[in-house]
């Protein structure tokens, strides 16, 4: 079998593939249902898959799940967008300009390793307990990932390309827009993908603080009041939405980098 053939078949929804896709999930669900039924896992803390599906339906028709999802997605995308835009802007400035690097680099290098959740107390004091602090937490997390990737992308541009541009006496704007940024694009998009994953993590952390809606709050509140089925529905919803958002970023990556030749796996 050639690489090409296998690559094609790995993407299609043929019967074999659907079977292969479902092997692990179905077996995991079976083990889970079994473990709860025979009492390995206490029913009081972990609901069985069938209970979860029933509860999922209940939360869907009561509109609760939609409300929590809506609140979470709003926070997630607001934070992620703010983080992405500021990350690319500051990253580009530091990447392009020695002055920018000298002015900002030391500060950002110290701030970047701080785990975003450590900002929570400061965010509560400065931005309050409303939406602001939650969005800001996600934005901080996304910002540093994208910022670092942008700087790296710009500074990693092949010198041959910049030399050619300079040889043709291209302006700084042209050099930036048509050489440096496109060359940094794969890095920036990878950063966006990582940042989106991190945003979900931070969203769940943020929604534990002073919330009354959102999927993270649903998970937390259900755990607080021993409602394991609600808790697992919340986790499942985050998993599925996380996968969808990741696929969306990959699609964006493919579209934006359609000129880019990379290794596509065997």
């Amino acid at each position: 079998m050639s690489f090409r053939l296998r690559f094609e078949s790995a993407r299609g929804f043929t019967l074999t593939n659907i079977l292969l896709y479902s092997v692990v999930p179905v077996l995991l669900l079976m083990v889970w249902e079994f473990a709860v039924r025979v009492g390995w896992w206490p029913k009081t803390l972990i609901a069985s898959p069938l209970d979860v599906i029933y509860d999922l339906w209940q939360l869907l028709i009561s509109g609760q799940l939609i409300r929590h999802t809506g609140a979470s997605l709003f926070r997630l995308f607001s934070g992620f967008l703010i983080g992405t835009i500021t990350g690319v802007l500051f990253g580009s400035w530091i990447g392009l300009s020695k002055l920018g690097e000298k002015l900002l680099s030391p500060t950002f290098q110290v701030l970047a390793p701080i785990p975003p959740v450590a900002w929570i107390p400061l965010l509560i004091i400065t931005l309050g307990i409303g939406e602001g602090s939650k969005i800001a937490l996600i934005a901080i997390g996304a910002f540093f990932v994208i910022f670092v990737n942008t700087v790296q992308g710009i500074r990693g541009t092949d010198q041959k390309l910049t030399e050619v541009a300079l040889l043709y006496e291209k302006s700084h704007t042209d050099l930036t827009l048509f050489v440096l940024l496109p060359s940094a694009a794969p890095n920036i998009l990878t950063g966006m993908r990582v940042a989106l994953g991190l945003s979900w993590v931070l969203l769940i952390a943020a929604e534990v603080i002073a919330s009354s809606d959102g999927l993270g709050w649903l998970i937390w509140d259900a755990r607080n009041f021993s409602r394991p089925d609600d808790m697992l529905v919340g986790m499942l919803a985050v998993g599925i939405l996380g996968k969808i958002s990741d696929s969306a970023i990959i699609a964006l990556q493919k579209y934006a980098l359609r000129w880019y030749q990379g290794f596509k796996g065997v």
Partner: protein
Amino acid sequence: MTKRAKYTVSGVIVLIIVVVILGFLFSGGKKKPSLETVRIGSFSTAIDYAPYLVAKSQKWFEEELRKQGVNVEYTTFESLPPINESFETGRVDAVFEAEPPAIVGRAAGIDIRIIGISCSLTQEIIVPSTSTVKEASELKGKKIAVLAGTSSHYGLLKIAQAAGLTNNDLKIIDLRPPDAKSAFETGQVDGWAVWPPWVEQEIIAGKGRVLPKGDAQIHSILAVRGPFADAHPDLASSLVAVLERAKEWIRNHPSEAQQIVAQELNLDPKVVALSWSKHAWDAQLTDAVTTDIQAKADFLSQQGTIRRAVNVKTDLIKPLQAVVKP
């Protein structure tokens, strides 16, 4: 199906079967009745655990339990869910907490028993010292911080109900005490339902004052894991005996007790002194207290906070089995 796919599928199936079999083998020999260590926990920072803190600092638990050849370990829980999770999975044996978390756990089917009581006190609500609010009924439409599921959460709802407010009249903000403190001091919430010493810290700092007390009673309890109480009634009785000894000592030596609590919780002694008289250190698990806990269980179930009703007398407070010595 290609050969590789077939191998993969059968490999995963074999793996799962192995895991299931191993699980069965290991679950068989897990639970041994003999016990080497009793694990005692407490929740958050509160003055109402004073008997526990005194007994712990004087090593009375060790003194009493080592007679029976058992060691003691201590843990502090910063949030509520891990307490019930630890009870259910046998990772903690006894916890000093208030009754609502025990009621919530019991309603979810976790076997928890209340075997002792540290003290009783009345729930208070504090408002910023600059606030114009004078009584609970004026809290309508205000933002109130409270940690969901705690005794103070119950107390807040109860006070609101007594003041003629419904749940929708209050904006309840779920915050852990340290976060609530920042929110309260920066004016982001209009009130805070919490327990001592958090209340007194705000009063002494001049940042808050309490509203006139309602009638929401809080009982600080000693909860144990059901299977622990059934398998080791003698150890459970020893815990109660130590608790009673500590309560008596506290009543007879209030100033030393306050000093110990201030030290153990790393608090300003003034804060401890201010809160001291709010606690009834002679409280017992009387019928009146049982009735009050039952009223709480009913209230929480009417509120929809818990899904199932709890019968306190039959489910939560069971007498410890008489010890049969061979």
